[in-house]
């Protein structure tokens, strides 16, 4: 029964899966945004550096060379720090850490936010009341200071940092998803599914979340950027994972060689700016493509 009707079956009013035309319209909106394609190109470059890190970097980022605080030159394109570590290698390998941290944190936030928001909006009633209060409260809690307290208490290994960041930034996603679920709930195809007695969990997973997820996706790209900046800030306060060479940590350690060894902080900082900007640009491109009204007005 399911196998033969599955793909083409449509309930009344069911928007179904995105068609080719819809995808093409979306892509056109994304390209029109100008920021979207630039961000994608930047991200491609950053991802390439991360993938090719062992090829690009002359040495391991932890390796001590004999050149202490050497300025940028032929052997060390970005110079070395006060312990003789090659800055260029650190920046190249740091790409992996930043991408990993940003993507994992944002993914945790997306999953938690989507589930909480979808349940709240779809269930309504007292469940929504409680979950909405929770979302509002957690939206108001200053994330950076909370993360700081938790990291200090529980430890600062990279998986921990990623999880804690992810678990503190989800309310923004939950709010977006809740609004989507509230409006989708009233649509004919969802009502039809309810009337046919489909299980609530199945309706959420098959109809509400797949059709309402887009704003969460756009916000998640922005949150990748935010997570990378948060980690950099934590590392700068000395709360980063001491076993990992991240850009924030490089800036933190480079501080002792300021003002003469400016290269120890300049280059890791530029790497953060480029990577964070890539995600901001992509997120804005997605929002632009998702929001046709704003598009027509040239926003």
């Amino acid at each position: 029964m399911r196998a033969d009707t599955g793909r083409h079956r449509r309930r009344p009013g069911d928007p179904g899966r995105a068609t080719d035309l819809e995808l093409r319209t979306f892509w056109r909106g994304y390209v029109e945004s100008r920021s979207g394609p630039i961000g994608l190109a930047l991200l491609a470059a950053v991802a390439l550096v991360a993938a090719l890190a062992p090829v690009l970097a002359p040495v391991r980022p932890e390796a001590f060379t004999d050149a202490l605080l050497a300025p940028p030159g032929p052997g060390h394109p970005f110079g070395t720090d006060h312990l003789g570590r090659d800055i260029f290698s650190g920046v190249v390998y740091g790409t992996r850490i930043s991408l990993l941290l940003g993507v994992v944190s944002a993914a945790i936030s997306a999953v938690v936010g989507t589930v909480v928001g979808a349940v709240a909006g779809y269930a309504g009633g007292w469940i929504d009341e409680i979950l909405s209060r929770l979302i509002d409260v957690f939206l108001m809690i200053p994330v950076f200071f909370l993360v700081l307290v938790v990291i200090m208490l529980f430890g600062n290994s990279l998986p921990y940092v990623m999880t804690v960041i992810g678990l503190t930034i989800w309310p923004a996603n939950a709010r977006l998803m809740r609004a989507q679920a509230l409006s989708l709930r009233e649509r004919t195809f969802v009502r039809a599914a309810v009337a046919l007695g489909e299980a609530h969990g199945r309706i959420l997973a098959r109809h509400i979340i797949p059709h309402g997820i887009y704003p969460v996706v756009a916000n998640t790209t922005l949150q990748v950027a935010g997570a990378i900046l948060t980690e950099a800030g934590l590392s700068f306060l000395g709360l980063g994972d001491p076993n990992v060479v991240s850009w924030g940590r490089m800036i933190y350690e480079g501080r002792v060689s300021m003002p003469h060894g400016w290269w120890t902080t300049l280059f890791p900082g530029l790497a953060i700016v480029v990577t964070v900007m890539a995600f901001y640009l992509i997120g804005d491109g997605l929002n632009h493509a998702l929001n046709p009204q704003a598009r027509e007005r040239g926003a």
Partner: protein
Amino acid sequence: MWTTLGYLARRCGALLLTLAVVVVLNFVLVRAAPGDPVRILAGMDQPSPEMVEALTRRYGLDQPLAVQFWAYVRSLLQGDLGRSITFERPVSQLIAQTVGPTLLLTLTATLLAFALGVALGTVSGTRPRSRLDALLSLAAYLLYAMPPFWLGMMGMLVFASWLGWLPTSGMYDVRSPQTGLAHWLDVAHHLVLPAATLALVQMPVFYRVTRASVVQVLGDDFVTTLRAAGLRPGTIFRRYVLKNALLPSVTMLGLQLGYVLAGAALVEVVFSWPGMGRLTLNAIYRRDFPLVMGIYLVVSAAVAVGALITDLVYGWLDPRIRYG
């Protein structure tokens, strides 16, 4: 009138709820963390027996959790945020001493960012997709992507170390007079770099919001009507567009507060600005947990109150809101 009061009551309720959640979080985190709460509160692995005894008694750690929680809440209500281990002084006193410089830095930077962001956002929003708009948008993206501490270090490098125009750190020069106008000029001189740093990283938020709302309002039907009625573009803009476009930026002022305080903490560390951020850093280095938790509580309360005030100001600015 009654609906306004009801709204006010509900917003205050939300504020209290937030504070309650923060207090519970604070309480639970210390006890859920790996290791003995005594060791955490003492900030060392091997506290002396006297210290263990003193801390156990002070926080009632030998009592059931409910009793401990009640004691914690009661001391908070009395304004007791705990006692810093390393400074050997009440946390509230340490925070009171550092809150002034932090407020000075944060308020200066936020006002600057707001003014700059709204001005540039208006410039961009009135000519969307022009070259100037593209340039300003790019600058906003760049600044938005910058870690505040890094921008501060770069500013320090150029304007303090290389050019020597501005002091590198601190809030005043110990050799200059400590009173009167000369003192305030000295403070202002020291404030330039940290405030500019914090303002620049905040500016993009106000810029983007203003730009988007100016574009939106200019496309609204009522503006077209006013134009058709023959009103001068300048008058339409000043009297109708700007007013509407400013509202979202005002909201951002409140929503941004947590982010601004985090940025301020990092900038303070860079410039050795004697505020709460530097106090936080000291607390982290010395593993002074009561101090860190106290700062966290105060920051959370400040952010929640800030959000409430913004809400009220917004309602006062926008008569369309009737708090239904």
